[in-house]
């Protein structure tokens, strides 16, 4: 699904990711943990295709066997990459319904499919709403405008459920959530899991991994994956903190 080889990324001349390797296969859930400033969000943004300040100086990212270096953000999304934002953006005046319909239809157009019918769209939307426990009528609500932190994160999972990506990268989707919201988000992610899709959960806290059970846990430190293991690694990190890994880095 995803294969990252010797990735180096700089922001304004400062190297943030310093030779990162990662392999993700269909059906797997990977957790990437690490302290603040270790490069977690940079990695997520770069996989999604963000340019501007990000400078890929070395290495390659392969997605479904293709090098995606030249692909735009929207092309990657249409090919099935989804990024759940740490800080979802407010878009006043644009309803969630309109936003999602625009996205789905652009993806369908890219794939040579007809526009989604109103009936199917509404059906999908009801299912996705149920999944994350959104009760309000989304037609009247602007994207993320006036949402609480928890609502914004639920809305990210709602969008994931609407778009059904092959590779979802969730960037600190758990941060700032109370335990109830965290469960809702985790249940949503679990329900969307199939043998054909993959999820990368980026998190600061072990807590999320009580609810989303990862197949692999990686520790990102100072721009490199310094340790990989099974889910037990997360527990070890929780009890020992990150300091003991500094020597290994």
């Amino acid at each position: 699904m995803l294969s990252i080889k010797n990735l180096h990324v700089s922001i304004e001349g400062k190297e943030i990711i310093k030779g990162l390797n990662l392999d993700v296969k269909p059906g797997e859930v990977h957790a990437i943990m690490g302290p603040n400033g270790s490069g977690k969000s940079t990695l997520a943004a770069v996989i999604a295709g963000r340019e501007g300040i990000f400078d890929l100086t070395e290495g390659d990212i392969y997605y479904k066997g293709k090098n995606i270096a030249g692909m735009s953000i929207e092309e990657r999304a249409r090919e099935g990459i989804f990024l759940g934002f740490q800080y979802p953006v407010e878009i006043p005046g644009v309803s969630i319904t309109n936003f999602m319909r625009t996205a789905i239809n652009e993806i369908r157009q890219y794939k040579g499919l007809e526009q989604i019918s109103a009936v199917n769209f509404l059906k999908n939307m009801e299912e996705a709403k149920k999944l994350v426990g959104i009760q309000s009528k989304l037609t009247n609500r602007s994207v993320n405008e006036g949402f609480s932190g928890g609502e914004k994160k639920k809305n990210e999972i709602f969008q994931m459920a609407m778009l059904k990506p092959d590779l979802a990268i969730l960037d600190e989707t758990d941060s700032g959530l109370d335990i109830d919201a965290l469960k809702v988000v985790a249940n949503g992610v679990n329900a969307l899991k199939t043998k054909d899709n993959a999820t990368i959960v980026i998190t600061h806290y072990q807590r999320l991994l009580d609810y989303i059970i990862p197949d692999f846990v990686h520790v990102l430190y100072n721009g490199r994956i310094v340790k990989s293991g099974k889910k037990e690694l997360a527990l070890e990190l929780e009890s020992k903190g990150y300091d003991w890994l500094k020597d290994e880095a």
Partner: protein
Amino acid sequence: METQTQDKTLREKMIGIFETRQETIFRNDSPGLVERRKAAIESFKHQGFPTAKTENWRNTDINKTLLADYNYHLEPTFQKGQDLSKIFKCDIPHLETDMISQLNGWFVSENGGIKTDKQGVVVGSLAKAKLKYPELIDKHLSKIADDKKSGFVALNNAFAEDGVFIYVPDNVEVEVPLQMVNIINADEDIFIQNHNLVIIGKNSSLRLVQCDDSVDHQRSLTNTITEFYIGANAELDHYKLQNKNDNSTLINTMFFDLQRDARLSTNAVTLNGGMIRNENYVTLNGENCEAKVMGVYLVDKAQHVDNQVFIDHAFPNCVSNELFKGIVDDSAHAVFNGHILVRRDAQHTNAFQSNKNILLSDKATVNTKPFLEIYADDVKCSHGATIGQIDETAMFYLKSRGIGEHNARMLLMYAFAAEVIKHIKIEPLKIRIDDMVKKRLRGELSICEQCVLHCSSQEKEINFAIDMSKV
């Protein structure tokens, strides 16, 4: 009909008309009004039209407009009593309004020009109101419309004969919104001056939609004044829709007087117009008033839009909020000038001001000047102005959902304007303006596809496109 000779400037010409045609100009006036007109023409003689040297007109050059050879009429040029409902038809779905039409600045009437409903609400022609309600008129007409504000105000006070008169007695909630439509439709270049007077009694409320449209492509200069008297604890919810041709100039000056506990919301939506200047003078003339002055403008080509707001906090415990947003393309020019005056006794004033612009081309210009003048010491005031581009993080967010460049820009442009549009409280109007803004951004809106009107005159399709690729 007056015709003019080329060797006279508009200023000299207007002074000449005033001196030679007084009998006609004064025909409906009380002695008090005659004196008022005479004072106004003296003020105009003294001031003339504004020039680039006039403060507050530095960024709006009216000179070229004034050079045109306009005809000026002291009487309507169309037959009174004609049925204009056949020419104009409001097509906003589910918007129920009582419509008041003006054609070239003259009140269009079917039944005597003035009527009173069972609640005592009077709606009609200002010319007729002068004869029927002389006391109300003497007390209010050209009283807050201060000649000193500009030569245009003085000239209007000297000349204007007709316009719309609205009187809402005390303790009346006017349920159906009133809609004032001023249509310009002429086969000549004309100069139009009309004067509207709106009086809202205490504890009453009114919703008013004021539309300025052209249905031709002729050159025109319109100098409109509207005086609003908002009584104690009364409420006015006011909208201006401006969708005019590129050859038209509109000088639209509004005076709002708020008594204690009164509430005002005014929202100017400028979709098209050669040159449009909106001047808002708001006086908070009692405690606990609230004024929201808002606007959104989408201009391109060589269009020019200028919003001037002056808010006078004369009493304590009042709130004012200004929010203006604009998208400016090609060599269009947008001007914003917001002046907040907080007088010495106006303690506990809350006054906020914001003007945000998106520039789409190197040749587009925005001049924005926030100005706070504060003499009280216990106040909360803020102002801010931005001129910029679409937010890159927001673009990333939209694209990461598969939305392409074009649609992502479109959605964000729309979101930018929506911050003002969401304040529209009349739902069908909001839906329509929403739709018009989207069309305008896509370049699909023509001036003939009127906001509120389907005109039956010959339609020439003109498209005004904001070039999305430049966002």
